[in-house]
């Protein structure tokens, strides 16, 4: 990591350390922990969407596989949570490989279709395979995660742990972007023909990034399972996959920080909306749950229309132009004085 990114990373670490001191309410801390799970999945998805130029509408399925592998192996077979998480990782690597090879050999957005189908299949299996997954009633008694024999009992501990994993994920993502492979991916983005003419195996690169992004999603699912200690099919429908894609798109496809900001923004939005509903009710306006969809849609529309490169680029870009125009006007006044 270099320059602005390492400064951003430092800011993130300080933010992580400071937040539990500012947010003392357990409920809101819990919301922020969920934001960490989404962030982790979105960082992986951003590598796939922004850097390999492929869309997955099935990352919720990889989150589900991570969560269910962890849930089944720990609650039913009493495995160590860490080993169960590792099994989830290996499983999604194999699945992503099998799914990615045929879909990514073809040009265009076949991966989006394949993953969309895959997400529906996983959701159906999770609901229907009652013996394995507990069906609609889910899996209970998933243990908490321990760190070197020290069980992460409080929300504050889990907050630090899960956001620590997010920081690690960001570190990994930036390493990849600034490596030989990252340059290869950017090259593919610039011109597939030129990249191939330099010996880059385009299919292999895309499949590898797809596999890595599935690992991020799986870890996020495992952490989710160990935090709520109970999983059911509810949160793992296709809608969740679409939400993850939306988070990345809202934040900014081509930037890891954008994905992080998009994930945090859309994870916290429901809380703001419930604030809003209380406020409106005080004025005698009844807030309908349907309004959520309306507000989500409007926000997405506004961002796509006015900040097509995402919130992150939008904010940093306008800040940059403010700074440069201030500099310019300062330069002008300085020139006049001379």
């Amino acid at each position, binding site marked *: 990591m270099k320059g602005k990114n390492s400064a951003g990373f430092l800011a993130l670490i300080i933010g992580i350390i400071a937040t539990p001191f500012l947010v003392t309410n357990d409920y809101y801390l819990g919301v922020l922990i969920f934001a960490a799970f989404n962030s982790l999945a979105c960082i992986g998805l951003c590598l796939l969407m922004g850097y390999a130029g492929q869309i997955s509408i099935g990352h919720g399925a990889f989150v589900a596989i991570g969560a269910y592998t962890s849930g089944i192996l720990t609650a039913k077979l009493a495995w160590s949570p860490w080993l169960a998480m590792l099994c989830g990782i290996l499983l999604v690597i194999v699945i992503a490989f099998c799914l990615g090879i045929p879909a990514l050999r073809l040009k265009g957005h076949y991966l989006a279709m394949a993953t969309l189908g895959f997400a529906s299949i996983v959701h159906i299996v999770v609901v229907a395979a009652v013996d394995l997954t507990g069906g609609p009633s889910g899996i209970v008694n998933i243990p908490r995660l321990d760190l070197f024999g020290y069980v992460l009992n409080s929300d504050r501990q889990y907050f630090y742990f899960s956001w620590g994993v997010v920081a690690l994920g960001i570190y*990994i*993502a930036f*390493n*990849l972007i*600034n*490596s*030989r*492979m*990252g*340059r*290869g991916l*950017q*090259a593919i*983005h*610039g*011109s597939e*023909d*030129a*990249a*191939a*003419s*330099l*010996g*880059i*195996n*385009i299919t292999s690169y895309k499949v*590898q*990034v797809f596999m*890595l992004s599935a690992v991020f999603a799986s870890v996020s699912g495992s952490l989710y399972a160990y935090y709520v200690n109970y999983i059911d099919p509810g949160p793992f429908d296709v809608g969740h996959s679409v939400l993850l894609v939306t988070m990345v798109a809202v934040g900014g496809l081509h930037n890891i920080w954008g994905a992080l900001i998009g994930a945090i923004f859309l994870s916290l939005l429901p809380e703001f909306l419930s604030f809003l509903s209380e406020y409106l009710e005080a004025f005698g306006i009844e807030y309908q749950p349907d309004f959520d969809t309306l507000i989500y849609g409007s926000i997405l529309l506004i961002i796509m229309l006015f900040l097509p490169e995402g919130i992150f680029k939008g904010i940093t870009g306008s800040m940059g132009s403010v700074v440069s125009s201030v500099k310019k006007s300062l330069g002008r006044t300085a020139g006049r004085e001379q």
Partner: protein
Amino acid sequence: MSNSILELEMLRKNFGGVVAVSDLSLHIEKGCVTSLIGPNGAGKTTIFNLVTGFVEPSSGQIKFAGRRLTKMKPHTIASIGIGRTFQNVQIFPKMSVMENIMVGRHLRSRAGIFYSSVLPPFLRKEEKKIQEAAEKQLHFLGLAQHAHLPAGSLPLGNQRMLEIARALALEPRLLLLDEPASGLNARETIAMGELIEKIKQMNITVLLVEHDMELVMDISDYVAVINFGRLIAEGPPAEIQENRDVITAYLGE
């Protein structure tokens, strides 16, 4: 010709009903600059795409240093030592000039996804080597002062130089240049000619498609003339200039 590095044997490519390359046989001699010339649409770029695996031949075969290239993917063909540039420059516009060339070192480095993402300190040595090799190319092509500019901001002449630098970073044995002088002014064209001479001196075989006849006749050891996908003449530049078929093809009758 026993000293040939690239052999095209009865090569044919049909696009639907259009015959782009028609049963063409041609041997490219090692260590020489060979030019493919011919009117627009004669099939020159298609030959480049066939050699580099971007399109598959309808029939016939291509041998590079004794190996058959048929059915090989472009990235595999690059890995056995064939570099190329494109008629409409294909640089990576958002990456810096330096990074563009570093991509060219892809096949000369090995870091995979695991070490790249999780343990980058172990790759410091390799990264340094990639950088040094790229810097060498930058200096060779005279692009050093632009190293950190985005490649897309360079003028066309420099973009063409950059594309060649990137292909040279591969350390190819055969370099295919598709109209390297098109869009260049007179001075840039002379510089391009000098560069191709230098590449030849590095013991890299050059296959050139070019419309600038002065440049072609100046730097080529051997010229092959193609019209309607067929080879109509081949020989040293002086002979080609006198050839009646060639004059007819270019000027019409």
